[in-house]
């Protein structure tokens, strides 16, 4: 084919369906905006957890369920209480706390001499660094101690275990997005191969293959998912498998329908007449020509898969602690909605934005790839 093209003088370069589609997509403002939003979210999830300064599984026992805010912790007004707590563990009484340049200075008194080693409780807390004795009196019954504050920010607050919600949401995004992409890839490969084969071979084979699809359709998704969890234990790869293994059915039907109409085209008949093997016809002629609707289906499948994963996590069958996904975070948040609404709002915001963008992108692609549209 390339030889023939090289020999003939080329007419004005034609525009392929894909070039046309790209042009139309670029004109669709909602689709372009969705692409940008998706790229930003993906980027944030990819590099964000490295920049927030908190590991996603680090527990801060002193900062449980902090509301969202840009203020630096510990707050000045919260320091005396924190010092009093530490003093109680040292078995001493704390005097007034003076905060200067990020250093808290406090006088500890006790009826018995204070063991300076106990000052390690300061650095063990989340609020202070290494404490230092400035002045000692009454044979060690009175200590003046200086402890630097450990400033930390939790932009979206912390969860019920005292973990930074922003970091966790971004890590969850990595998980949800990769589950969405991987499961969709599984569904894509199985569905396209199965649908194209059934549609192209036709006849009795087609009937048997599509009847098998009908049987799987009648089995509820949750049944298969739970069984897979039971068989393989609770791990993430399983979620990919479970979701991908169910979602290929739609893809297979779409591809089969397309294939049925494509296989009567002249170029397929020509290929058959030239003796191209079935496999070659499928991969070279049939599958590439079904790609338009398949791509649209993929953009709509990714949000569906993310939703299904979050549904599994809601049931406690999905991603397991300390790893997390948007669905797992949302189901935690939904349980604490009264006391800490931000625990629901932040992950739900990320999830809904992503799904929104994917849906708009899918719509835009459908319009762009539809030749009857213009």
């Amino acid at each position: 084919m390339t030889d023939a093209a090289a020999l003939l003088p080329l007419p004005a370069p034609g525009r392929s369906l894909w070039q046309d589609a790209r042009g139309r997509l670029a004109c669709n403002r909602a689709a372009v905006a969705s692409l940008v939003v998706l790229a930003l979210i993906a980027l944030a999830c990819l590099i964000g957890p490295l920049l927030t300064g908190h590991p996603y599984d680090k527990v801060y026992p002193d900062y449980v369920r902090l509301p969202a805010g840009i203020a630096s912790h510990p707050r000045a007004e919260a320091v005396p209480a924190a010092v009093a707590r530490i003093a109680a563990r040292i078995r001493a009484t704390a005097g007034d706390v003076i905060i200067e340049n990020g250093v808290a200075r406090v006088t500890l008194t006790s009826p018995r001499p204070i063991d300076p080693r106990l000052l390690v409780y300061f650095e063990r807390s989340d609020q202070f660094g290494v404490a230092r004795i400035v002045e000692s009196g009454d044979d060690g019954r009175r200590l003046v101690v200086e402890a630097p504050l450990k400033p930390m920010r939790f932009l979206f607050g912390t969860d019920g275990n005292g973990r930074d919600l922003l970091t966790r949401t971004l890590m969850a995004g990595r998980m949800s997005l990769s589950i969405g992409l991987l499961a969709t890839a599984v569904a894509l490969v199985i569905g396209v191969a199965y649908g194209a084969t059934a549609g192209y071979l036709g006849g009795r084979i087609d009937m048997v293959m599509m009847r098998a699809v009908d049987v799987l359709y009648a089995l509820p998704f949750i049944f298969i998912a739970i069984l897979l969890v039971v068989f393989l234990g609770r791990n993430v790869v399983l979620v990919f498998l479970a979701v991908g293994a169910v979602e290929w059915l739609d893809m297979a039907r779409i591809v089969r329908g397309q294939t049925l109409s494509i296989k009567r085209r002249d170029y397929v008949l020509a290929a058959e007449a030239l003796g191209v093997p079935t496999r070659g016809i499928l991969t070279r002629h049939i599958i590439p020509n079904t790609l338009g609707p398949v791509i649209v289906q993929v953009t709509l499948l990714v949000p569906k898969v993310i939703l299904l994963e979050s549904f599994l996590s809601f049931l406690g069958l999905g991603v397991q602690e300390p790893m997390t996904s948007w669905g797992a975070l949302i189901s935690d948040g939904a349980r604490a909605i009264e006391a800490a609404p931000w625990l629901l709002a932040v992950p739900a915001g990320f999830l809904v934005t992503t799904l929104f963008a994917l849906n708009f992108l899918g719509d835009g692609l459908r319009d762009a790839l539809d030749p009857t549209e213009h």
Partner: protein
Amino acid sequence: MLPFILRRFLSAIPTLFAVVTLSFLLMRLAPGGPFDLERPLDAAVMANLRRIYQLDRPLHEQYLTYLAALLRGDFGPSYFFRDFTIAELFKQGLPVSMRLGASALVVALAIGAPLGVLGALRRNSAADHAVMGLATVGITIPGFVVAPVLQIVFGLMLAWLPVGGWNGGGTRNTILPIVTLALPQLAVIARMTRAAMIETLRADHIRTLHAQGLSGATVALHALRAAALPIVSHLGPTAAALLTGSVVVETIFGIPGIGRYFVDGALNRDYTLVMGTVVVVALFVLVFNLAVDLLHALLDPRIRLG
């Protein structure tokens, strides 16, 4: 028409049989059993239990026993909800789930379809964009986010409706669950109606109607009939899913439906409960697929005659 129905009905039987067989095998091959506890039972007790429930027989014998019982309409006893048979559980739960699901379906159809038609008739107007925006929101927000938000707003802040519970089926108790169930379906129906209407409005017969000078409303009604085909196809599986209950909604609102049985049954290896649920769900799917085919035949003469 009758042979058409009969043929469809008969072709559903092998599917049902395959579903039952497949799920029976999958369930039995799963590790663990219905009587596994944190502290294992005494071996003699376990042997007795297994004998009473006939779990000590070979697998094919159990399968045949189950199949024979199923044909007589006997779903067997539940292993997890002791003292209940599966039939009793469904007798209690199924009407609850069906009532919620049917109400949600009606609400979704009654609001979603007109919105979709509106969007198609006023394409690319502000109303269209509003409808599509709302529909996208409805599709993207999962039920387990909608439900707690509704509980907070209408149950606690405004205190108009109860946050949960069934209360013997009081109307006020059903509103929030129905809204939660209906919202995503409403959105899907609105989108599908709009897409199908846009497609149909371009068709030749619609242009002919316009040319004959019929009013816009009449033309829209004609278009709606043709546009109804994909919506009806979608409604089949949707109705089956809605009527057989939703785990999320029933868990969050504390509703005694059958949605939870799958999860409870499969996690506790309650073989009969899972099998019963599979059969019920599959029956719903098959019946509604049949109904869809019939509606298609009614709406589109080409299918009926072809």
